[in-house]
């Protein structure tokens, strides 16, 4: 394999000077692929994405060790705006829409960095509305007054407006209705195959993520504990049991798990 688009090499991240969150994470995202980053709550997925897009500073975090390269260029010192200029954009966890702006204005700000003219931008806008018709009907509402799911669509749509080369998607499925979740992943697939957009996807919905991703990393407690082709991961017994909820082959009813409880961690 040639050099990957994104290469994260043994990074450590510390918040607030004292809280060590990532303890040497390495991962590669090859151009034109979909890579999933899986792991439980607090594993450090968001932190990894923030490190890549350089959004750590605002959270008082910093990369203290390791390196991140994009097409062989060191990027730790760049600003987020520089990253967007290089085509890398992050969809932040927790929506973060601009509450006072309307849905359409939100989407339009996404095109802020584009230089290819009004017509092209409008075409993308139409494309986004096509992906998410619900947004079109709510286009003139202030984003703060739309429902959680609508905001999530807005955040994803806003990132797409920048016509990115690579998207860092943080929990895109959160709060979306099942069929929209499916649609979001279809959109990812679509963009990936049609436009060659690369995706790094932090997701809790392991099932979906592994269905659409090419490759996956599993993060636990700030360390990568397992990685492999998505298909292989989906077949892995541990993954099946703990991430897909299919211990022993079948999906267990949520009502039944209540009687017993186990936890397994690869690393204690």
């Amino acid at each position: 394999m040639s050099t990957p688009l994104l290469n994260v090499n043994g990074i450590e991240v510390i918040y607030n000077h004292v809280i060590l969150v990532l303890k040497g994470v390495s991962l590669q995202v090859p151009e034109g692929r979909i890579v999933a980053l899986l792991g439980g709550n607090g594993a450090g997925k968001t932190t990894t994405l923030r490190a890549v897009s350089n959004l750590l500073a605002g959270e008082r975090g910093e990369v203290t060790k390791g390196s991140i390269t994009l097409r062989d260029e060191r990027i730790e010192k760049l600003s987020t705006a520089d990253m967007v200029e290089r085509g890398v954009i992050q969809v932040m966890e927790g929506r973060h829409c601009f509450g006072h702006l309307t849905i359409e204005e939100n989407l339009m700000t996404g095109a802020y960095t584009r230089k290819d003219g009004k017509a092209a931008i409008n075409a993308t806008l139409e494309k986004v509305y096509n992906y998410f018709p619900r947004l079109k009907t709510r286009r003139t509402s202030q984003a703060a007054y739309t429902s959680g799911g609508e905001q999530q669509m807005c955040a994803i749509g806003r990132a797409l407006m920048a016509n990115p080369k690579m998207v860092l998607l943080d929990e895109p499925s959160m709060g979306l209705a099942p069929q929209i979740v499916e649609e979001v992943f279809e959109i990812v697939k679509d963009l990936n195959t049609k436009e060659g957009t690369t995706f790094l996807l932090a997701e809790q919905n392991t099932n979906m993520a592994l269905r659409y991703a090419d490759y996956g990393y599993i993060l636990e407690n700030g360390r990568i504990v397992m990685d492999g082709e998505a298909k292989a991961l989906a077949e892995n017994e541990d993954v099946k049991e703990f991430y897909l909820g299919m211990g022993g082959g079948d999906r267990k009813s949520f009502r039944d798990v209540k009687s017993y409880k186990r936890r397994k961690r690869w690393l204690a």
Partner: protein
Amino acid sequence: MGFFLETLFGGLMAGMLYSLIALGFVLIFKASGVFNFAQGAMVLFAALAMARFSEWIPGWTGIESRLVANVGAFLLAMALMVIVAWLIEKLVLGKLVNQEGITLLMATLGITYFLDGAGQTLFGSEIYKIDVGLPKDPLFLFESTFEGGVLIGKEDLYAAGIAAALVVVLTLFFQKTGTGRALRAVADDHQAAQSIGIPLSRIWVIVWSVAGFVALVAGIIWGSKLGVQFSLSLVALKALPVVILGGLTSVPGAIIGGLIIGVGEKLSEIYLGPMLGGGIEIWFAYVLALVFLLFRPQGLFGEKIIDRV
């Protein structure tokens, strides 16, 4: 009646002058969510620069024309304000991305101290003069209708015109341009704005420069009215009720708020003041703003405060 009109006009004019300063507040708030207490200090700083440069330019260049001195001083002062904007972004705001409003507000108070000190160090602390040829003599209207006519300051009329023009331009800028939209986005959520590639630092330099420009204009007008001296920075206190009454995020609000406050405080001082012993206008302005806010907590034209779960 003539006197009432006179008070009314006087209030309107004073209000426009407040708006000029309020505009600076609104601009920065709208574009970065920062409540810039340093606006008053910026007005003083800009005015000091203007006054002193126009004094020095004839000496530097040997040209004794007032026009040259004023234009030159204006350009130099503007350049200085851009530098200030750049420094503020580099040294202060750039490092406080994503912090809470109150922290940012305190930082601007820090900037206030710095600018007060720097201004007086660079330019001195005496009273200086700005003379850009604004007419000082009063104008009398309706002299046939009312005894003594209705007095209006010509200087104030000019100032009002300039303020109105600035408001129109800035309103269009915010509502109609992509940059204006980006600025509003930044004010809503620094981090999200960053995440979609809005270069905060460049934007802030621009906004603070524009605010510096507004401060310079306000400084020139207020300075030629009052003389340029430390107290000029305190006129910002007169603009605060205007800002909240009009709405922190509304450019036209700054004007309407200014007019309401201006008229309200002058009328109150003249018709209510004598009953209460006088000197009430300063608190009356705030109480007036407070009363309006009780009905519209976001100010007359401000964006609704979002509060949703």
